[in-house]
């Protein structure tokens, strides 16, 4: 919508017609004018607007004008300034974890640190293996993106990935390598790379400033202060993520062929783990039930069919349908699931606090106005029993189809 102010002849006509029922609303409210004696006069009664619950509100920021004034246009999204590095003096290489194909908060902190190290001359190059689903590389601070794809890098292939990273090393010769010191892959890959390149890395680094880096040592009772080496394995919250610039995510290609080796470690795939034995605080996929669940047998069936860890809201626990240690929320467990599925939970604020760290929330609920739906990424309005039954059927068909394909 453009910002051109358009006349509304009908509104003008109503404003002239004192007998029209909408006449009062259409008066252009003049708040201050020059009086006859040269004094500025003000009418305090027309300042502000009537808020949604019938009370008069005054917004002195000038951002909101209720009633009168030109019709509000959707405010355009503010474009952050673009940070362009045409000829980088050096590179800072970052290998993000990309859990689920997206940048985690740890990855974003790491990119923030990389931008701090790159300053205004260097370029931050992110090395990503395989497909990704990330759309916000630009605001996360990636100047160059190097995607390495191929069958060899799928699944668990740390040795092959290290070979790819050494090819990056010989092509770009980055000033620093930054990897997240996480259990999800970054810590292992970084240490393998360090052994391969013969660099002594700084591990569990939580601060890099003025060429010095501080990292935790031993069991966490001491810090090790040293000059920043080429390879840094950084802990969470090592720096502030990039927030006020946009970066061009320019694609970079690897020029050389990546050496192949015969894999000495063969990945035989994930092993089915009993989801009930996984501690709820670290479960990846939680199916949570609340007051809206009427058929608890079916709920347990659904959890088994989906392979999800079970959770519950406070109401379900108080009513005795689920044990106390399954309660999600402020008084129960604060969960960190990647996918959280809330069945019949309206979303009390205590519950929403407990799922604050979850990535994707799916809600199944009868009430389209509840708070859980506002939080959810996907909500289905309807009877939970029918939807769960359909979901069980669909997943079972998928599993059997998969088994047939494998056989």
């Amino acid at each position, binding site marked *: 919508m453009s910002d051109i102010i358009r006349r509304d002849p009908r509104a003008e006509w109503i404003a002239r017609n004192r007998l029209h029922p909408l006449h009062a609303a259409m008066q252009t409210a003049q708040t201050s004018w020059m009086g006859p004696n040269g004094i500025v006069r003000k009418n305090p009664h027309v300042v502000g607007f009537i808020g949604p619950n019938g009370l008069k509100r005054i*917004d*002195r920021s000038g*951002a*909101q004008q209720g009633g009168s004034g030109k019709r509000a246009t959707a405010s355009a999204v503010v474009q952050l300034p673009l940070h362009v590095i045409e000829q980088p003096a050096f590179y800072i290489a970052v290998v993000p974890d990309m859990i*689920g194909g997206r940048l985690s908060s740890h990855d974003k902190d790491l990119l923030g640190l990389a931008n701090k190290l790159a300053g205004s001359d260097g370029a931050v190059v992110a090395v990503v293996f395989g497909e990704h689903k990330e759309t916000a590389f630009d605001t996360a601070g990636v100047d160059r993106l190097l995607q390495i794809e191929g069958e060899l890098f799928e699944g668990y292939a740390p*040795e092959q990935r290290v070979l790819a990273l050494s090819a990056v090393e010989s092509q770009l010769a980055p000033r620093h390598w930054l990897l997240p010191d*996480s259990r999800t892959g970054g*810590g292992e890959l970084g*240490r393998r790379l*360090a*052994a391969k390149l013969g660099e002594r890395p700084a*591990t569990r680094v*939580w601060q890099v400033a003025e060429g010095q880096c501080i990292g935790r*040592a*031993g*069991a*966490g*009772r001491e*810090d*090790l*202060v*040293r*000059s920043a080496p080429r390879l840094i394995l950084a802990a969470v*919250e090592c720096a502030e993520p990039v*927030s006020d610039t946009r970066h061009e995510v320019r694609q970079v290609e690897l020029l050389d062929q990546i050496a192949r080796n015969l894999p000495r*470690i063969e990945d*035989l*795939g*994930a*092993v089915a*783990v009993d989801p009930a034995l*996984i501690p709820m605080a670290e*479960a990846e*996929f939680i199916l949570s039930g609340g007051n809206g669940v009427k058929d608890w047998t079916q709920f347990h069936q659904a959890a088994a069919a*989906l*392979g999800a860890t079970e959770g519950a809201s406070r109401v379900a626990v108080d009513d005795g349908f689920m044990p106390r240690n399954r309660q999600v929320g402020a008084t129960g467990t604060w969960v960190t699931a990647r*996918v959280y599925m809330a069945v019949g939970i309206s979303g009390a604020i205590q519950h929403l606090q407990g799922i604050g760290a979850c990535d*994707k*929330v*799916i809600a*199944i609920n009868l009430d389209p106005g509840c*708070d859980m*739906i*506002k*939080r*959810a*990424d*996907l*909500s*289905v*309005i*309807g009877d939970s029993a029918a939807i769960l*039954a*359909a*979901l069980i*059927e*669909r*997943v079972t068909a*998928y*599993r059997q189809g998969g088994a047939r394909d494998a056989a």
Partner: protein
Amino acid sequence: MLPDNLNIITLVSIGAHPTSGRARRAEQDARAVELGLRLAGDKLQVLHAGNPADEALRAYLGMGLSELTVLEQPSHGDALPLLNSYLKDAGAQLVLTGSQAETGEGSGMLPFLLAEQLGWPLVVGLAEVEKIENGMAQVLQALPRGQRRRLKVRLPFIACVDNAAPTARQSAFGPARRGQLQACEVAVVDDSLLVDAHFQPARPRPKRLKVIKAKTGAERMKAATAKAAGGGGQVLKDVSPQAGAEAIFKLLVEEGMLR
């Protein structure tokens, strides 16, 4: 499923209690010893590089070991070359370590460097050895969030265990006294790290502040009172249960939740 003549070496270090700092057996190394005892029984060899007079080493002997080999070196020495030359000739099929030391640098690099120098494969986060046959081992690797992955790896290999490995058995006083600490004289190599680095007591990390970059009062008010809102979430209204289930199913597959 395990051959009888399995030659396993576990590398152990001296740990430190997280609160008091008192010397003790290192938690993860004790788990590595436990795993080795389950696999090889009495034939497990345990190796330490450091001071053989250290009393904390006896805690490992108390787990039921008859002897423990110590490569004698001062505390500032570099353990890597000693272990490397020892393991080259030891003929081990499996070397178990913890993932990082509780004292000193604790970078967790040792198994990686050993694997690189010996040219052996390395398994990180070993949880269980399922079987060993025809020179291949089938093992379970622990992943975050309680997940497991099955790997097949060629012998000999190095594996480091973390907290997903079986809990270490208690250390008994009698066996700890009876066990033998065998000291070996070796050439000492100094560690180059402490030339330019120094230790300091760990500072508590500053809590990250929530910085609100608002220019106007209204924006600040909005940031302070905003509820957790996902924003543009997709809402499916008036659809059949099948269509709703299909949408949920698609999202679950996309996120890789259905295994």
